[in-house]
């Protein structure tokens, strides 16, 4: 199987620049959506989101994956602040904010991973875009399931909360078991 990779391939400028720009654009959209959906404390929600954007931009600038990851905390915090005091549930906005922020984080991490002189092929970019698209589609499906579960039970009932926590705990336990089973000792080259 031959490879299209040429060692002399120069990483194209669009790839180098697109990822940070995409990350910041998605983060900016998050700020706008959170600001619009906030009813009680819109300015506070926007400020918290701006902290997240700042952390994201800082992480990309100093090539720190941790900073990019940590930026998710204020992003979620801003969304929670935005929902405080509202009677209804912003299903669509929350899901959209979650997906946009995920895209921002992925783009930020990609700009860090692909920086430092790494020459990537279009196939890598295509694969990552495909994975992000699959995740967003799956997230929409997860949100739909959540909506169905919530509609089946009275809003904010204790049963829904217990179900939510139990499913998270069960999921984490299953993931840990899967991880332990999938990592046999590696004695191969290299």
């Amino acid at each position: 199987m031959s490879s299209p990779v040429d060692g002399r391939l120069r990483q194209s400028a669009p790839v180098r620049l697109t990822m940070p720009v995409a990350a910041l654009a998605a983060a900016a959209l998050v700020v706008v959506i959170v600001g619009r959906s906030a009813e009680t404390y819109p300015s506070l929600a926007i400020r918290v989101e701006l902290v997240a954007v700042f952390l994201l931009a800082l992480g990309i600038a100093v090539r720190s994956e941790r900073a990019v990851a940590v930026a998710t905390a204020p992003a979620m915090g801003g969304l929670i602040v935005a929902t405080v005091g509202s009677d209804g549930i912003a299903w669509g906005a929350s899901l959209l904010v979650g997906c946009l922020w995920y895209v921002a984080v992925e783009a930020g991490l990609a700009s860090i991973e692909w920086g430092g002189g790494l020459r990537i092929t279009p196939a890598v970019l295509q694969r990552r875009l495909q994975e992000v698209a699959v995740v967003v589609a799956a997230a929409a499906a997860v949100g739909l399931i959540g909506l169905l579960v919530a509609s089946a039970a009275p809003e904010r009932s204790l049963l829904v909360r217990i179900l939510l926590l139990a499913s998270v705990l069960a999921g984490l336990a299953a993931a840990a078991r899967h991880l332990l089973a999938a990592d046999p000792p590696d004695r191969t080259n290299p």
Partner: protein
Amino acid sequence: MRRRSTVRLPTAVVVIVVGALVAAMLGRPEAALFTAPWVAVVVLGLAGMSRQPARARVDLVADRIVVGDDVDLRATIEVETPGWVELRPRPEATIWGDERPANERPSVAVADAVTGQGPRRLTYSLPSPIWGTHDVGRLEVTVHEPYGLFERSGLVDEPRRLRVHPRPVDLHRLLAPWLVRRQTGVHESTAVDRGVEFADIRPFESGDSLRDINWRASARSPRLLVSQRHPERSTDVILLLDSFVESGHDVQTVVGLAIEAAVALAESHLSLTDRVGLVELGGVVRWVAPGTGRLQLQRLTDALLGTRLYANATDRDLAVIPPRSLPPRSFVVALSPLLDERFVAALYDLRGGGHDVAVIECRYDPPDPSPDSASPDIAAAAVRLFEAERAVVRDSLAERGIAVGRWRRDEHLDAVLAEITAFRRRVRGSVR
């Protein structure tokens, strides 16, 4: 290869747990909905993670290149799941002839997608290294698993020997040896026998071939005269390489020049049915017995490219070399900056032992004294003294009939050979 989680996995887990707790405690499902992509990425990433370890190997596309060519390598990666791989070559530090720290070396890292179906071959290149033999088999491989939750990384460290030849030099002339073997070749012998080059005329004797009668000369003589000719013979050419470390920081260039000349001479003489051998005199003493043919050229080239410079203060002489590798009456072409007394002494010994010796001096020019230095006059005087010492060495060699041609990179080797040939023609009768 060791698997480790990327920053995505702990981020996703923390986001999911915090989102679920906040949603449960505050009764706001928005927090849980925010975590939906992270739930999806964890589920998809764990489902797609590979169970088999990844395998990688490195091969050279061509194990011999010429200085100036890029090094093409092929990495074969076997992974179970689709994802993308990152290749970061880690060749030895001296491949580019300097000791730059890792972060300042040329970056040649490449990345490509893998499908997880069968081995994937990725080709990458390293910038042109300096002449010599290098190991370029070290490669850092990182396999990014689906959805980026995990990556496997490891170092492939398989010896992959690359031979970088100096730039080929086309020679239009060669040094004519004074001493030849009995085997037929292309060098004119001083003996009189069957050949092409006219030598002399003598009276016809019984047994002479009629084809040798010189009719033009006989017509003007009362007797029949026959032409005598010089036969063409081959010779044993021994390339004597100086690898003593005496050239300061420019040692790589000077020895590089010597090797460039040695390869050119070996190629040219081997094409003329001469036997060519090699003796390296320096930090180590190595030799290749004279031989002919393409295989011999490869042996010589490999030995030349394997030349290493070791500082060594001990006396070195040629007595350890077996006579088969340094045959009597062979034509020794020395390649040296003429900076080490031990090497110059070896040249005297060879000439005294009856060898025909010529020297190609690979010139090392000391740096010009800086006008800003504290004592430019002293520096200039030092340079003059250095040149004077070398002139003395050259004169001393010339007195013994050893021709010395000075070669710098910006000159063609033919010019140096012409200079040596001219000297050898002048002194041929007096010193043989």
